[in-house]
């Protein structure tokens, strides 16, 4: 028998007791969200999950996955009762939970799992398809996934919100109505089923009392797309919505000060940092690590944190979120303009220098202006150049931007996957490579033993920190306002998840 690691069983045991809890009364009441993004039809179909956390706001409500991040942990078994990985790391086996059904009553079988994996065309689809040799249906209740070669991060991609491959859709129904039809009237296995959806405007869902984990306590969920922040806050105060996502600065401050309302900060894995591509050009001042050190000390992270996210964000010294696996936490560099000026003088720039363009990350222009202000104060003079979001992302990716670039990414995964994009040779945003770092990175990519791998990944982070390759600012907190009717808003229940969740645990206050 394949050596099974007991992780899977332990996980499911925990959940069993949750089910045993007395089934709540019949679901009632409506909870409404003022959502900051445009609700797109694409987010109703897990097969098209782009590499961001946003679509999972919808998937957690109407779909379910074999294994997904839950309060219990990153790879919590859900539709799979348990999962286990073979000793040689080539085979992963999932045992399906018995008696679990889709919204239309069809039972969930291994065929649906294979069908969902094969039709997946979202983020990292190519990566998965390249590395997976075969999805084998052992029997209707058991699936084995065979890899071509050992891939320690397989479960980081398959079992977390990095991809939507593990989220299961009904094979017969999808084949009957086709992709467009499925997006118009999706059927999933999640705690809520879709009642109505107006693309870009509103998504209405109702509790699915047949949900295996427990019957949700709130009857109806409504997501309403509201692009303007002040409107979201106004709708919250008026009572038109119960939760308003993404509030910043003064608007958030006002909600916090309003009696009966709460301001909460979710911690998605996103770090704001300043990228310095010019450091690879010997002629540029940034090539000198003392200048980079100076810049790190020039910025008052707490003041900006207070101004932008009311102190909810977490100033940091590393580009890797603390919550990530294999992350090495660093305290944020002290705010010390004097030291910064001294370092600049040592590096030969007593009265500072012109550092060229400063690109804030759209739409966070005010934060960009504040950062540039601090750098200016110590003599690093920049010219703020705001850009339209889409052209900024394109130009950054094609390395057309020179000077200082404020960057952030919310893609989930672990320290290694995050580093891959920024420091390793093939990385999209890598402007230069340190041979030593590249060597360490290749070694960890093949390392099966978690402990050894962690040491290597941490070594990389140590080098980046010592050489001050980037200027980390803070781990961005995602603020939302919560209205008086909400008892349990599900903030930060699922580690690294920016939105309310799990939906089945949300509760409204009993109407007196």
């Amino acid at each position, binding site marked *: 028998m394949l050596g099974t690691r007991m992780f899977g069983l332990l996980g499911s045991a925990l959940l069993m007791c949750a089910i045993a809890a007395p089934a709540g009364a019949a679901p009632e009441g409506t909870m409404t969200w003022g959502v900051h993004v445009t609700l797109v039809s694409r987010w109703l179909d897990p097969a098209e999950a782009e590499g961001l956390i946003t679509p999972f706001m919808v998937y957690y409500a109407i779909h379910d996955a074999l294994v997904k991040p839950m309060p219990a942990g990153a790879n919590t078994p859900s539709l799979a009762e348990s999962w286990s990985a073979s000793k040689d790391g080539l085979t992963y086996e999932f045992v399906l939970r018995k008696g679990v059904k889709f919204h239309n009553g069809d039972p969930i079988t291994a065929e649906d799992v294979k069908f969902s994996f094969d039709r997946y065309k979202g983020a990292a689809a190519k990566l998965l398809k390249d590395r997976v040799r075969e999805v084998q249906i052992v029997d209707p209740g058991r699936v084995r996934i065979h890899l071509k070669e050992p891939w320690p991060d397989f479960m980081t991609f398959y079992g977390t919100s990095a991809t939507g491959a593990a989220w299961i859709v009904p094979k017969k129904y999808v084949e009957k109505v086709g992709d467009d039809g499925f997006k118009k009237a999706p059927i999933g296995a999640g705690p809520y089923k879709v009642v109505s959806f107006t693309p870009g405007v509103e998504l209405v869902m109702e509790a699915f009392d047949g949900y295996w984990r427990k019957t949700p306590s709130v009857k109806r969920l409504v997501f309403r797309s509201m692009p303007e*922040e*002040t409107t979201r*806050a*106004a709708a919250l105060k008026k009572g038109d919505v119960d939760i308003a996502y993404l509030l*910043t*600065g*003064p*608007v958030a*401050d*006002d*909600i916090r000060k309003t009696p009966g309302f709460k301001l909460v900060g979710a911690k998605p894995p996103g770090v704001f940092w300043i990228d310095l591509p010019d450091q690879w050009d010997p002629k540029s001042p940034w090539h000198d690590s003392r200048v980079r050190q100076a810049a790190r000390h020039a910025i*008052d992270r707490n*003041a*900006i944190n207070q*101004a932008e996210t009311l102190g909810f964000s977490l100033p940091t010294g590393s580009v890797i979120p603390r919550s990530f696996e294999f992350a090495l936490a660093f305290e944020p560099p002290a705010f010390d303009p004097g030291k910064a000026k001294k370092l600049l003088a040592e590096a030969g720039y007593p009265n500072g220098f012109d550092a060229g363009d400063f690109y804030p990350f*759209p*739409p966070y*222009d*005010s934060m960009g*202006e*504040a950062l540039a*202000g*601090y750098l*200016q104060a110590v003599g690093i003079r920049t010219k*703020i*150049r*705001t*850009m*339209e979001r*889409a*052209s900024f992302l394109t130009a950054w990716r094609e390395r057309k931007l020179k000077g200082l670039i404020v960057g952030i990414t919310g893609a989930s995964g672990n320290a290694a996957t995050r580093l891959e994009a920024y420091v390793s040779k093939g990385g999209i945003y890598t402007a230069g490579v340190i041979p030593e770092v590249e060597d360490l990175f290749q070694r960890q990519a093949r390392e099966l033993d978690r402990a050894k791998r962690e040491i290597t990944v941490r070594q990389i982070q140590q080098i980046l920190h010592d050489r001050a390759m980037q200027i980390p600012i803070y781990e961005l907190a995602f603020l939302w306002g919560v209205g008086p009717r909400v008892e349990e808003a599900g903030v930060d229940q699922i580690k690294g998840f920016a939105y309310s969740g799990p939906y089945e645990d949300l509760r409204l206050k009993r109407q007196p």
Partner: protein
Amino acid sequence: MNGSRAASVTVPWRFPSLRIEGFPWTPAIIICVIAFAAIFADVLAPYNPEIGVLGDRFRPPAWQAGGSEAHLLGTDHVGRDVLSRLIFGARVSMVVGFTAVIVAGLIGTTLGILSGYLGGWVDQVIMRVTDTWLALPALTFAIFLAAVVGPSMWNIVIILAAVYWTRYARVIRGEVLSLRERDYVRLAIVAGCSKKTIMRRHILPNVLNSAIVLGTLMLGIVIVTEAALSFLGVGVPPPKPAWGLMLADGKKGLMAGYWWLTVLPGLCIMFMVLSANLLGDWLRVKLDPQLRSL
């Protein structure tokens, strides 16, 4: 209008005597004050409008609790002095406003005269282009240019000019159509003037009135459109101080009661637009002989 040529039949263009009676003094003074602020901004403004002290942000105006003499009209969300930004903002708004209106005026009037006077296929082509242009909203242009070239103040001028020349073309064409029928134009044709001369000497002076009047009215519309573009994030790029942008940035403070961040730039825009319109109305009566009699 020397005698040798055909007896001058056109109304000689001379700046009509702007009798003081009924001259709208207040709007004129407001526009002069704004122009004065725009020209001498560097001297007048107490602080550099683009630099702010983050710790010192959201300070209310001096006369309100928490306000300080240092910042008479308070500070904005990045701690910059609002008064200085308003003064420099006058310069940006004036430059953006006037340049856009003048450029739009030039294009629109020329095309308006050409299509109105020449008629035939020229008229059809220009009219078709105007119709098409109307379908492309200012906003679409703004984002195209912001995306392709990157946002800048001059982008906004190009966009505003590109969108609003059609208004001129439409109005001027209408005028030229009626002018063409007038006897003195027919006489000029009989007298053998070439098309170009007729357009330049006879049509242009008479159309200039409404172009100027339209210009004053467009000034308001252009400024307000700039504010809308800034609201959508494709207007004049921060940190350059423009009234529209200040208004857009200030909206975050509305909830929290930082009223001065939107009300003050809003007032500036309102004064400028109202004065432009009132001057425009007065000019229209003064310059337009037909209306003058009323």
